[in-house]
């Protein structure tokens, strides 16, 4: 007991020291000016002088890449040391924006979700891969082999800022067992929304005959989340509609838009109890437990849903995957590319771009698909035969999806305000889902808020 005060006194001294340090810290803060220095390569390192590059990525795959992708890359380029820091998805964009604006940025490589490239590029922090870094591009790097949709995710205002490194799409999963129990034919890529909605009531079943339903037709995003509107947006797209018109004015507040949102809301009737709170995990778990016959979800979950016995009760032969149902224009899918960009102020631009080129090259992509099960963006990879058998039907669905994505421009608004728009849509969609507003009212409010936002940004 006696030693306590003495220990505390020691801490006081430290406290004062720390306080002084903090005072120095805030003494001045000059604006961090962004001088447009030229991109100097920095080389790819030598055995004597290796170079180090650092990447900021989604926590969901940062470790997998660090542990498996980096060693594979180092077989070819042993003198480029790669560190990958993961950030939780929800805060990744904000963190990247903050990190990018430094005069001497911490990160050489920025991995961005589908709609982020305009926001990141607008800061002036990203290198133009074909312009700034063109001189470091390998002669055999085949730009034309990419499917157009995936490559377009990395493009903004005529410049290619990033390349696809991890592709994804919203697709339709279905449980063949539950379809058979309901006496319905298995879905095909030709399944229309009308057919789907006609079948949905029959997919709400009482499989153990105890008088209460224990299997439902559908699970997908229903809660207040920026990704929830992508479901009705995809329905709208496959009927030929768009969120914004050519002049960046809201174009979703139309009968077609209302019908699309209403379809999404109607899905709730055939979804498990409590589905209104479904975000990403819940529909996934319901499907993995064999509780729902279909699921509109990101394709990347296929392995954990159909293949991995630790995470799912289902078997590969039970789970079908294909594009989302067909509308008046095309089938449905929604683009969710992870692309990667090089920081303009990076001192190691050449090494960074070298890593990206390898990862998105034909060989790199095939290695990634075969080893990690990551989805490809290249035509050559998609037409190859994957080593892992479960990828065969998935490749087919992805390829169909790319066609649909091109036909219906199925992606989120390609503007720096993309996430702000998605937030507005998320709130209003959720209001409509929970019955606080009708589909018309929700879209009217959303349209008003989106035009106010875009107007304030000078569109």
């Amino acid at each position: 007991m006696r030693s306590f005060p003495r220990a505390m006194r020691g801490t006081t001294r430290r406290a004062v020291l720390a306080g002084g340090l903090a005072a120095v810290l805030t003494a001045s803060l000059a604006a961090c000016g962004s001088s447009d220095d030229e991109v100097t390569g920095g080389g790819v390192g030598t055995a004597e002088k290796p170079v180090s590059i650092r990447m900021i990525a989604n926590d969901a795959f940062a470790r997998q890449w660090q542990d498996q992708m980096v060693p594979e890359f180092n077989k070819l380029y042993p003198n480029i040391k790669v560190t990958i820091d993961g950030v939780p998805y929800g805060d990744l964009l904000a963190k990247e924006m903050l990190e990018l604006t430094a005069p001497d940025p911490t990160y050489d490589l920025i991995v961005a979700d589908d709609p982020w490239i305009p926001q990141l590029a607008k800061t002036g922090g990203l290198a133009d891969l074909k312009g700034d870094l063109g001189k470091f591009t390998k002669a055999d790097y085949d730009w034309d082999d990419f499917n157009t949709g995936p490559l377009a995710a990395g493009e903004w205002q005529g410049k290619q800022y990033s390349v696809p490194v991890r592709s994804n799409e919203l697709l339709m999963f279905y449980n063949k067992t539950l379809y058979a129990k309901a006496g319905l034919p298995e879905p095909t890529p030709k399944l229309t929304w009308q057919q789907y909605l006609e079948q949905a009531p029959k997919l709400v079943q009482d499989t153990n005959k105890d008088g209460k339903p224990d299997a439902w037709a559908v699970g997908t995003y229903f809660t207040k989340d920026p990704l929830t509107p992508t479901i009705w947006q995809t329905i709208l797209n496959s009927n030929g509609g768009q969120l914004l018109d050519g002049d960046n004015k809201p174009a979703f507040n139309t009968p077609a838009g209302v019908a699309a949102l209403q379809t999404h809301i109607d899905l709730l009737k055939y979804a498990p109890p409590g589905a209104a709170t479904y975000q990403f995990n819940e529909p996934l778990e319901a499907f993995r437990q064999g509780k729902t016959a279909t699921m509109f979800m990101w394709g990347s979950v296929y392995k954990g849903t159909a293949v991995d016995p630790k995470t799912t009760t289902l078997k590969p032969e039970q789970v079908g995957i294909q594009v989302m149902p067909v509308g008046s224009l095309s089938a449905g899918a929604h683009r969710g590319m992870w692309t990667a960009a090089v920081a303009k102020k990076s001192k190691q631009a050449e090494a960074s771009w070298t890593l990206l080129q390898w990862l998105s090259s034909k060989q790199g992509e095939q290695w990634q698909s075969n080893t990690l099960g990551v989805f490809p963006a290249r035509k050559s990879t998609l037409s190859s035969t994957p080593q892992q058998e479960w990828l065969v039907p998935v490749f087919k669905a992805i390829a169909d999806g790319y066609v649909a994505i091109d036909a219906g421009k199925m992606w989120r608004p390609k503007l720096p305000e993309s996430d702000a728009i998605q937030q507005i849509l998320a709130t209003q969609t959720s209001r409509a889902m929970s019955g606080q507003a009708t589909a018309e009212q929700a879209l009217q409010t959303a349209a008003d808020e989106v035009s106010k936002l875009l107007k304030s940004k000078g569109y």
Partner: protein
Amino acid sequence: MTTNTQTAPARGGTSSPAGPGDRRSRRPRAGGPGLRHRWRDLASRWVFLAPALVILAAVLAYPLFYTVWISFSELDLATFTPARSVGWMNYRTVLEDPGFLNSLKVTGVYLALALPLQMLLGFGIAFLLNVEWRGRGVLRALFLIPMVVVPVVAGGVWKMLLDPLWGFVNYVLGLVGIGPVNWLSDPTLAMVSLVLIDTWRWTPFVVLIASAGIMSLPGDVLEAARVDGAGWWATLRKIVLPLLAPVILAAFIVRWLGAVKMFDIALAATKGGPGQATDVVNLYIYEKAFRSLEFGTASSMATMVLAITMVLTFLFLRLNRYLEKRW
């Protein structure tokens, strides 16, 4: 634990022997032992405030200034510095934003429900815990756990428990023929659930502080009351409550300031939904700033929330002082 004299070099006889009564109005003795002495005395008092003030000023001053500055500017996201001043425009935008006004309302409802509930439960449980038996220490430590579970996990576990399909709560309710209840997807019930989760999480704080307060109560006073034959209600009202008043009020103020800032649990459990039913103001600002990257308007909102909180906090402190004097 006897009084310590061995090291103190007896600098400055600042004591005021037998200084009677009111600690607030006690001043340094006028015409004391000279200016030097008085200055020393003053310094020896300010020394106590200095560490806190230095740390807070150093770390907090610039961020506060920055927030207010940005709230009057359009932020250049390329440098995170103001691109140009826009006057009150951000504030006008905010005041015309129904989402923001709604979030203030939601926050008010949440605070009005959660705070009294947590204070009552917390002190109630602290009294229950204040019984001498072997398991008390362990129980007290266990009561800390809800606070320690990281919000993301806590929110997720609660979502699991409340889910109508696989949730334990609805399973139990189902056994007695109720439900399934859509705890998180009905606008009203979502608010109830949020208050319940927050109460689960933060009542332990009140228990912790209240227990410490009760432990510090002078035992002889209680004993004397008991000998006098006072009933427990009279003891509680006339002796315990007045003695505990400062602790109760302090716990309330700390809880109030913590609750105003709550957004992590809402984010993890309901994401502010359905619609905006549980969109507390700090969650709204967080999403505006970090998800929509609207830092200008977010800063205006932050400044307004700061102003509102300040006013309310000062009101509470007023009340605090009044009650402390009265008891």
